[in-house]
């Protein structure tokens, strides 16, 4: 059985990754399990300068989901290079750096300052974060901007470029195609869904920033539909995520057309979930006599 997944010029050992923002830069979960068993880790978003993020509370629970408004809190490139890279250097799995910014220039800067690192195996371009005022979601909803940004970043690096899509658009396949024609090696979807929780006692949004990002099992059907739509619109590999809580959920994504998947919110509920998902995928492939991940894509859903 061959579990490898090729994204751009990189072979991930298996299709199971951990979603950006839910896994830090790997150190914390590294205390709980052997990260070399993963296909890839997708880091917390990185911006050129440190960001403190939004005010608290940044989290709230909703039916089968959570809202978050972290606001891209991250150490910035410099501290990333000094504090996080030494740890990442020791890892066996692919490391995909999630890149964010308020301007095109910021995305460019992150890539320019990190492209030399061997321990970074690729970039996930976060054009879809609902939790920052400038940039983020704005980039992600206009196909022209998506294509332009992707083109500019494409010139800077040979490493795989994965464009991360938001579900908060009229037609996600249009954005996916724009990323593809800009030169993306892959697209990942979905980022969080715009959502809001109001504290009726305080008569205020629970999360001070107001609208936040919904993730977790509540949005899994939205993610699967997005992957189904996108994988029929582009020919680059699609990475699926959103609400994966067990192997069966991940298999839904693969059958819908994903070549790889990411576990996000599910980690908070079951920190060893990525390993369980990987085992479950292997078992399923055995039972169904599948030899490679692309075998998932041969069914008429």
């Amino acid at each position, binding site marked *: 059985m061959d579990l490898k997944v090729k994204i751009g010029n990189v072979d991930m050992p298996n299709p199971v990754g951990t979603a950006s*923002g*839910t*896994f*830090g830069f790997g150190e*914390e*979960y590294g*205390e*709980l399990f052997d990260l070399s068993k993963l296909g890839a880790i997708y880091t*917390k978003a990185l911006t050129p300068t440190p960001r*403190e*993020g939004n*005010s*608290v*509370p*940044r*989290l*709230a*629970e909703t*039916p*089968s*989901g*959570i809202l*978050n408004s*972290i606001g891209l*809190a991250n150490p910035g490139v410099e501290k990333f290079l000094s504090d996080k890279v030494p740890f990442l250097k020791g890892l066996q799995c692919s490391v995909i750096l999630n890149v964010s910014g308020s301007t095109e220039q910021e995305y460019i800067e992150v890539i320019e300052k990190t492209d030399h690192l061997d321990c970074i195996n690729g970039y996930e371009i976060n054009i879809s974060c609902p939790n920052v005022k400038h940039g983020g979601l704005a980039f992600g909803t206009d196909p022209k901007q998506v294509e332009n940004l992707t083109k500019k970043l494409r010139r800077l690096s040979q490493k795989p470029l994965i464009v991360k899509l938001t579900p908060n658009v009229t037609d996600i396949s249009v954005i996916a195609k724009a990323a593809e024609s800009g030169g993306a090696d892959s697209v990942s979807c979905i980022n969080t869904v715009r959502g809001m929780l109001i504290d009726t006692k305080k008569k205020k949004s629970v999360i001070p920033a107001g609208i936040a990002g919904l993730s*977790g*099992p*509540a949005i899994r059907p939205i993610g699967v539909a997005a992957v189904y739509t996108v994988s029929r619109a582009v020919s680059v590999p699609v990475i699926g995520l959103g609400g994966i*809580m067990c192997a069966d959920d991940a298999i839904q994504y693969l059958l819908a057309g994903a070549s790889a998947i990411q576990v996000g*919110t599910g*980690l*908070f*509920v*079951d*920190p*060893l979930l990525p390993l369980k998902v990987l085992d479950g995928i292997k078992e399923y492939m055995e039972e169904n006599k599948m030899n490679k991940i692309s075998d998932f894509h041969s069914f008429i859903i």
Partner: protein
Amino acid sequence: MEQFYSKVISLKNIADDYYLLDFRWNTDSIPRPGQFLTIRTTELTSPLLRRPFALSAYNGETHMASIIFQKVGNGTAILAQLQEGDILDILGPLGNSFSDYRISENGNITNHVVVAGGIGTGPMLYLADELKKTGKKPLLIIGSRTKSLVPFTVLNKEIETIICTDDGSFGFKGNVVDYLKSRSELIKKSVIYCCGPEPMLKGCHFFSVDVGSKCYVSLEQMMACGIGACMGCTCETEGKKKYTRVCKDGPVFESSEVKWT
């Protein structure tokens, strides 16, 4: 820190809506007072997140551990219905502890004032016990709205304990800060440790500033990962880093580090 499974040894209702849960601590790292664990309350998807609780006791010989929790919502309602033998999915121990500060910064001090309020009672019972065992003189002060919320059955008779009730239905009438003020002469020579609702923590902090004692507080914040990865549980601290993670850099902070609002 490790994820492990453990059977419920016993679950007792110890005061209005307060429960004592005993279970075996099936992992090697020893949990200290102030540290916490998270429990997955259901295999289903609602309530979704693991729930954090501080340890209220740990016995290194029997490997028995306890938490005290208050039934406040869906997650704790599920826990309150656990039966002996049911399996708990536990992640812990998490965070830092009062003991870290006690040992590193206050090793020589004899008098320790341990202040607990509401659902903050659990970790403070454990801290008072630890202080007692290490030969210190803990004074435990427990604040409650009313007598029926005081977990009398779990109190250690060998520890000097003051109960404060807001309505005066038992012990000192008033809140714990009122009590501290009433005995400030004694207390100013002590180190103060607190866990409870934020107004109480704030009151203790400003009291400690007034009398010139050191004060440590355990904070609460909504948590997702509980291990420092998601940046969801930050609190505002003084100094260069505006936000600090409660789950990993805390939950215990020196009270002067915290930005009180």
